[in-house]
């Protein structure tokens, strides 16, 4: 593939019809650092996380009421309530609107390399909307914790992520109580079990920073979970003691486990909120974290089986800069491995964006977008696990998945209408890089619509 085509497809989100390929691909990528808009207008129209937490609180109350009503007035009420959309309707609407915004930003973006990185980090720090508490907040998580830090330091993104209500709720941190905390001991005296939840502590170490089997022990996880107690979400709890100052992150001293902690050989004597933050700050620059992040970036931009030389370069730069993300991106831009490796198989999200950008679709209604990505096998913010979606072809290149792409290609081509000349567009999307087979298939198509469908389904389009 020519470098212009690599810049558009591998680094970016696919070319746009009517736009020439970048004359200087490296400069085109670097210039996006300055042009990137962390707060585009599509986002500002959406409810922020404080509002979404209030909605979540209301939905929970509403559901409790309905259950109580159903008990006293018979089962019919429940069915009636379900018919009206149920208490979580508003939050589902917020999810759909956020999917629409994310899609619109990606389709319109002229900083597609940085948008790709936003998607990469949101998947690295994945929350999944199959958990009810996460449905409304998933979009806000990406908009508030990922986007503002995509060109910053890994440490700052990590801190923003682990403090975000979406993450605290998704990985059960909000409910974790120190057994020896004031509230923990009081609960124990009353014979009620309230205790530690290790979920977030474990996933921070395993998925967000160090990586699995990188040397930490179960004892480290438990100690970290103790340090994290108190990191919770305000505005949701019933007890006045845990109400907090409002619907946002807050440190609840009454549930924090007192005492100093020892994690991976380091002693943390801080008291309160700063203790877990100190652990996070150390994890953020740990050599295992550097290696883990380097491996994932190399896999995303070079190959499913990432080249060791590129991992080493990224790892070195991570440690040298203490996790300066743009410095890592520059390594990717300069590395021969990213420009000359075999193409990566596009995920459903990537293929859809490329197909829509190619045909000049600027906006999709949220419900249409959400439905389409689900149909293609990659519902937005719904990987089903905190590990996020896989970044290898084996997870996406399946017979039925491919068939659905061809069906969608046909539909997109039909909607695009006859105005688009696929022969011309092919050259814009894959400058100097289109195979003879694809060129002749497009040329021999029986109609303009069919030619476009063939281009969108072509081997070139399936990969980046």
């Amino acid at each position: 593939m020519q470098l212009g085509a690599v810049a558009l497809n591998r680094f970016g989100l696919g070319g746009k019809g009517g736009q020439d390929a970048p004359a200087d691909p490296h400069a085109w990528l670097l210039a996006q650092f300055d042009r990137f808009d962390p707060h585009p207008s599509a986002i500002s129209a959406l409810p922020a996380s404080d509002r979404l937490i209030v909605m979540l609180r209301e939905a929970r109350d509403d559901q409790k009421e309905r259950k109580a009503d159903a008990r006293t007035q018979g089962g019919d009420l429940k069915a009636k309530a379900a018919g009206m959309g149920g208490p979580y309707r508003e939050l589902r609407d917020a999810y759909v609107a956020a999917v629409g915004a994310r899609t619109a930003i990606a389709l319109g973006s002229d900083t597609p390399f940085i948008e790709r990185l936003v998607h990469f980090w949101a998947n690295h720090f994945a929350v999944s909307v199959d958990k009810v508490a996460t449905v409304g907040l998933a979009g806000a998580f990406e908009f508030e914790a990922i986007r503002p830090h995509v060109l910053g330091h890994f440490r700052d993104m990590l801190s923003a992520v682990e403090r975000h209500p979406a993450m605290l709720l998704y990985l059960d941190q909000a409910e974790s109580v120190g057994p020896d905390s004031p509230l923990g001991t009081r609960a124990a005296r009353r014979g009620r079990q309230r205790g530690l939840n290790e979920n977030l502590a474990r996933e921070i170490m395993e998925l967000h920073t160090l990586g699995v089997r990188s040397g930490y022990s179960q004892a480290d996880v438990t100690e970290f979970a103790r340090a994290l107690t108190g990191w919770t979400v305000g505005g949701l709890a019933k007890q006045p003691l845990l109400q907090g100052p409002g619907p946002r992150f807050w440190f609840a001293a009454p549930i924090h486990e007192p005492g100093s902690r020892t994690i991976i050989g380091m002693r943390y004597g801080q008291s309160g909120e700063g203790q877990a933050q100190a652990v996070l700050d150390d994890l953020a620059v740990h050599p295992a974290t550097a290696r883990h992040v380097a491996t994932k970036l190399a896999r995303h931009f070079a190959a499913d089986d990432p080249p060791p030389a590129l991992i080493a370069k990224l790892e070195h730069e991570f440690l040298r800069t203490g996790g300066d993300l743009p410095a890592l991106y520059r390594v990717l831009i300069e590395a021969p491995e990213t420009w000359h490796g075999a193409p990566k198989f596009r995920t459903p999200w990537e293929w859809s964006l490329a197909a829509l950008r190619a045909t000049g679709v600027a906006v999709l209604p949220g419900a249409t977008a959400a439905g389409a990505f689900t149909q293609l096998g990659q519902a937005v913010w719904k990987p089903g696990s905190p590990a996020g979606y896989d970044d290898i072809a084996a997870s996406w290149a399946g017979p039925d998945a491919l068939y659905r792409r061809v069906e969608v290609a046909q539909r997109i081509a039909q909607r695009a209408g006859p105005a688009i000349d696929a022969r011309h567009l092919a050259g814009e999307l894959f400058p100097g890089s289109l195979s003879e087979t694809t060129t002749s298939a497009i040329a021999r198509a029986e109609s303009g619509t069919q030619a476009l469908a063939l281009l969108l389904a072509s081997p070139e389009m399936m990969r980046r």
Partner: protein
Amino acid sequence: MLLDRRQLIAAGAAALFAPRIAFARAATERRMVFIIQRGAADGLATLAPTGDPGYAALRGDLIPELADQPKLSGLFALHPAMTQVGAMFAAREALFVQAVASPYRDRSHFDGQNVLETGGALPYDRKDGWMNRLLALLPAGNARGLAISATVPTALRGAIEVASYAPSALPAAPEDLQQRISQLYAADPQLHGLWEEALQTRAMAGGLAKGDAKGAAAVGQLAAQLMSGATGARVVMVETNGWDTHAGQKGRLGAQLTALDAVLGALKTGLGAAWADTLVVVATEFGRTARANGTGGTDHGTGSLAMLMGGTVAGGRILSDWPGLGEAALYQGRDLKPTTSLDALLAGALAEHFALDPEHAAPRLFPGGEGKPLADLVRA
């Protein structure tokens, strides 16, 4: 020739073939249906040798329900999804033959299916299929062949013209696009394989691919309808896909067998009195590994299961020269060892069913087959 739904409705099923092919009155009332299980169906889970001491160790908790199934014989239990087939067995209308295989001994689906359908000794040895050659052995001009699928499968291809009918025809435009996509992907090893697999799955008549029992029953009904009456088809093939259960076998195989059971049940019901003159053969290209793999499934194997059903079958029996499941008994240390020739089984059953001389018919139907045709499979 491919008839579309509109023609079928306009003409009525009985008149289906009238416009193109002139038929004399049928000289035989005997009918046969071949249901092919594409993808290597797991015979060891369909008719599970739970009485073999090695079974539990090899299959562990892959399909735990099988252990609780009542045994049909000392050794074998039928998968619980096969309720209608189970009833046929009880009524002595079903005969199971365990540890069978075609002459093919490698593990490629496409090559294995080709051998199964052509009756040759090697893949792509022959161009025509054994069902088409069977038509040639039946009274001239009287036997009609029909495939319930969009195109004529290999087993029915050959000198004699046969019909095909797909109950859910795709609109014309995407079909053309599909062909062009096939060309577009032809030189791309990854996309070519995926695409052909996707097409194979979709091409099947009815909703069998997804284990949709309602769709499957409709396929059985349709086949029965097209076999009814004096001018109905006598040699019919039904294709089923989705048997390649490398992962999540418990649920997938359950759905597949539920669908297959529904096809067979609907076929019997739909044929009514003609069921007494019918032989149904269910077979697959090869079996699956004796041992469960690490992803809740099984991989490509060798020996498998064949099922004969219908009013003419001398059923209520399981034929098996059981090779056992011990380490030394397994073929290449991994698969059920085939002890019965599938070709000899089919040659014998078809000859008896259609009153053909087995010594004459067998080499014509299965030139690649070895051994004497099996006998006493069908009631005279």
